[in-house]
Structures are given as C-alpha cells and as structure tokens.
C-alpha cells in the first residue's frame, strides 16, 4: 500500500506545491511535510508529500551498490 515516488519540489505556495519527476509535474500537498524546501526531493503518495529524500544517504546507498557491483564483477 505504498506506491510513492520521489519528485523534485519546483514550486511552493504555503502548503501547496508543484513537484516533478521525469518531466511530469503534479500539484502536491505539503500538509504532511511543511518543512520541505524548493529543490528537495519529496516522496509523493496519493497527491501528498509524505517524506523528504535524504540525498546524502541516497548517495551512500548508491556508492555501496557500486562497490557491491564492482566486487561482483571481479569474482
């Protein structure tokens, strides 16, 4: 019950924002994530931002995957 997509917050007016992913935009409610800032990647579920992507953590995970993949190829 969890279809949620990370989208970049590109516009904001009080608790309503516009977020974008892959060139597709939608109005989102920021009522559940009022501290989101322009440029943040918000996790959007059913038209609401429910969380904010921690980009540093995302990079750490991607780096981990890169290492795992390289080690896998070396075997």
């Amino acid at each position: 019950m969890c279809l949620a997509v990370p989208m970049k917050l590109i516009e904001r007016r009080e608790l309503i924002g516009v977020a974008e992913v892959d060139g597709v935009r939608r109005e989102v409610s920021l009522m559940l994530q009022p501290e989101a800032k322009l440029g943040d990647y918000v996790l959007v579920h059913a038209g609401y931002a429910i969380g904010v992507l921690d980009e540093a953590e995302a990079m750490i995970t991607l780096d981990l995957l890169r290492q795992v993949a390289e080690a896998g190829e070396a075997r």
Partner: protein
Amino acid sequence: MTTPMTFGDPRAVSALVGRVVRAAGKLTRRVTLMEVCGTHTHAIAAAGLRRLLPPTVRLIAGPGCPVCVTPVGYVDRAEALARRPGTIVTTFGDLMRVPSSRSSLERVRAEGADVRIVYSPRDALQIARENPEKAVVFLGVGFETTVPTVAGALAEAEADGVGNFMVLSGHKIMPPPMRALARDPEVQVDGYLLPGHVSVIVGSDAFAFVAEEFGLPAVVVGFTPTDVLRGVETLVGCLAAGTPKVVNLYSRVVRPEGNTTARELVSRFFTTSDVEWRGLGTIPGSGLAPRPEYAHRDAGLLEVEVPEPVEPAGCRCGEVLKGAIDPPECPLFAGACTPSSPIGACMVSSEGTCAAWYRHERLAAGGAR
C-alpha cells in the same frame, strides 16, 4: 564503472544475488521470510526476484495488501452508499473490482451509481466542493502510508467548511497483525521485510518490537530490486549468526522517529478500533475509526441497508494471507478463482498473493500449473 549506478541496476542486482547465495550457505535449514506490503509483493513479482533466490530462502507474502484484507462487509457498505440517493462515492482504483457479497463497485456504477476513481483524497475533496448538494464519501482503505493523506483531506474539509465530505474508514495499522502472526503457531516466519513507506510515517523504531518481543530479525526496505535484495541478504545473515535485530536499510527516506506531523494529524481525526481482517478474523486495536467529535465525517454512521455479508465457500484467503499455504493449495485457485473472475480478495487486487502468483509464478518458464 562507466554508467551511473541506480537502485534498479542489473549489475548490482546480480552481485547482491551472489551475496545472498553465499550468506545462505551458512544456514542450517530453510528459512521463510515474509513481506507485509502489497507494493513489495508487486515489486518482487514484477522483477522475478523470487526466482533468483537460493532454495534455502523462501520469500512469502503476508497480509500486506489492504484491499485483500478488507472484509466483504466493507465493500457491501460501500455499494449500499453508492446506491444511496444524492451520494457520490469516490475511491482509489484498487477497489473497483473487489467482489462484494453480490456485486462490485464497477457493476454498481454500470447500474447507475455515481462512483468515481480518484488518485488522491484531495481530488475527492474537490468533488465535494463542486457538488455541495451531494454527500461525497471517500473509501478510506490503506495502511499507515495512506491514512495521513486522508487525515489531510479531512483537515482541509474542516478548515474550509466543506460539510459534505465524509470518509468510510477501512483503514488498518500494521503492528497488531504482525504481533498476531508472530504468536500464531500456524505461521512459521523467520524474519520480516518491513514496509518502507509505512515506515516513513511510523519510523523504523516502531518495529523494534519484532526483535525485542519475538526475537526475529526484520529490515526496513524500499521497493527497488536492490533494496529488497539487500534486505534479504541482511535477514539471512542475521539468521545464520543467530542475531535478531531490526535494521533500517531505507535510510534515504526512513528516519527512526518517522513523520510526527503526519502522525499527529492522524491522531487528531482517528482513534484505534477493533476491526476484522478478511481471512484473519478480528484483531484488537488494528483499525482506525473517526473520533466521536468527527462523527459528521464518518460515512459509517450514514443509514443504509447493508445485506448480511456472504463469504465465498471454499475460499482459503485467510491461510494464504498468513503464509500458511501457497495459492495453488487453495481448491479454487486458477479454476473458479482467477483474476478475471475473482472469488476471494487475494485474487482481485494485483498485489494480492493469489493474483501475483497467478500472473507471475504459475506459468513461469518451465513451471508447472
């Protein structure tokens, strides 16, 4: 490595599978891991991940599909509301084809009821604004990820005085059924893949009880193939080493404390209740009902005639939902009960264990019926 890494990268998936296989080499017996999120069921089936796992690691789906665990009586009531004069029923697409005792929302719409599919509860609220003379009922189905969005729409309705917007709550929360499963002798689960987006709301700390109370390992994971496989690898490692713990592997969106704003909004409008889970019976404190001071928002209080619910004979959805049997062990599976003519809810929702099995496992290359 020249091309950028992504969470669905096949090279990483392949390497992670290798790591799972190696970790499983240290197991002394076959282990069963359960995911409890319909979106995980879907994601795992779509990538064919089950087929990549070694035979000692069995991955099963638990009661994580909110549509599947919605009791027949709820859909019956939704239909009765749809037939009620001056009423518009708004719903997520997921519910349209769920069989009720005698019909479905899709069929009721064909008979003339005003039933509309929305992507967001805010869209349902907008319909209420545009139709002030009608009662607009939103079918609130979903777990902790979705409830805050419904609470958000209720908050807007209250603030803007949209008096004709109501919710029929079928909402449920995850920890109670997991506790019930952990205590159920029929259920043999060695570790859990925890729902990543439910955890965004409730926080990874909310699942600490799995290790603390039941001595089982659990991992909070996202929905890409690398996320799921990292979770499986961690669980297998914990089981081989005998160290039960709860690990957050979805730290890019899940915090230990979760989303407090969302949870506060939910507690403003909802309180816990004892509700029936289709196939599992009543689980105390596992549902969410509108608080008494918001009775005017509770579509469950509208007077409609709801027939006695009829549960289909022979349906073994309950055991499937507990992971006690695989779909092919149900006598109705792939015979009387198929995605195009579903009997039990496990087959209706594309996340349902039976539907996912029918679509992806049943006729896999070389697979038997």
